[in-house]
């Protein structure tokens, strides 16, 4: 028998509200998004907080899904972990997915660039990116990570761990303020 009680205790300790482990399809992104929105409404959160958490969640999950679609990675690498939690009154959206080793330096440079900017700098970078010609290979506009950082309370928390000779595992933890500054 698996240790569900043990798993539950870990979830309780970490304040986990929703977690998903598997291939992130579009309908799963949609359903979890609806669930988290409803949860925040039921817990009497302001619309600003709901917007922030939902925006981070959508950008993060669509980023992962779009990346995996264009990466050409085999299906065994598609499994993604997603965790939404509440820690000390703040929300965290965490995702972990495979990334091809050759794509790590570009992503790392982008994350470092973003973490070195304050809100005004992020806005400027966002607007520059908005005016750039879209990369035809990409499924997004290259705005996702900047958008995430603009909604986050803290710097982006990330880590790369080796899976095998082809891939690393990219973890991204984003913290969002539970309620706007009083």
């Amino acid at each position, binding site marked *: 028998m698996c240790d569900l009680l043990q798993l539950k205790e870990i979830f309780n300790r970490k304040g986990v509200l929703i977690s998903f482990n598997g291939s992130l399809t*579009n309908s799963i992104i*949609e359903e979890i998004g*609806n669930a988290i929105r409803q949860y925040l409404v039921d817990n009497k959160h302001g*619309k*600003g907080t709901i*917007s*922030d958490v*939902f*925006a981070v969640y*959508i*950008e993060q999950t*669509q980023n992962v*899904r779009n990346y995996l679609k264009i990466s050409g990675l085999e299906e065994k690498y598609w499994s993604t972990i997603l965790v939404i939690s509440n820690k000390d009154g703040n929300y965290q959206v965490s995702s972990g997915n495979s990334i091809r080793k050759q794509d790590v330096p570009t992503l790392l440079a982008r994350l470092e660039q973003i973490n070195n900017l304050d809100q005004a700098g992020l*806005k400027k970078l966002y*607007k520059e990116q*908005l005016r750039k010609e*879209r990369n035809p290979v990409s*499924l*997004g*506009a290259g*705005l*996702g990570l*900047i*958008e995430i950082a603009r909604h986050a309370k803290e710097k982006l928390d990330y880590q790369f761990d080796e899976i095998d000779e082809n891939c690393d595992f990219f973890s991204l933890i984003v913290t969002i303020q539970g309620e*706007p500054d009083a």
Partner: protein
Amino acid sequence: MLDIPATKTSPRIFFSEESKKLKISGESYPENTFAFFEPVFTWLNTELPNYDQVTIEVNIRYMNSSSTKCLLDIMDMLAEAAENGSNISAIWYYDPENERSHEIALEFGEDVSIPFIIKPEDQSGQS
């Protein structure tokens, strides 16, 4: 004829021949955002020169970053029509109970060169 029905993750996009209004309303985070907006770009390219007056009305609850990019591209195409002599304006509805919604409206307006009016949605009687 432009009338794309709304889904749970994509807005209704409708052009009214009568009022000359291009209305975009609902949620906007479709799976492949650029593919979703493609018919609108096509319509603007082919049909916009036939109208000397168009008002775009946007009332979106949430849009992902790719939708923001697409909406800005739509505004740019409308601005080009305005430069060619058409009477073009934009109305952006925001949720007065959501401070983020107002911030998004204001920031979006900074990048738009056509007349851009920001209104709270409750007073508009629109949904």
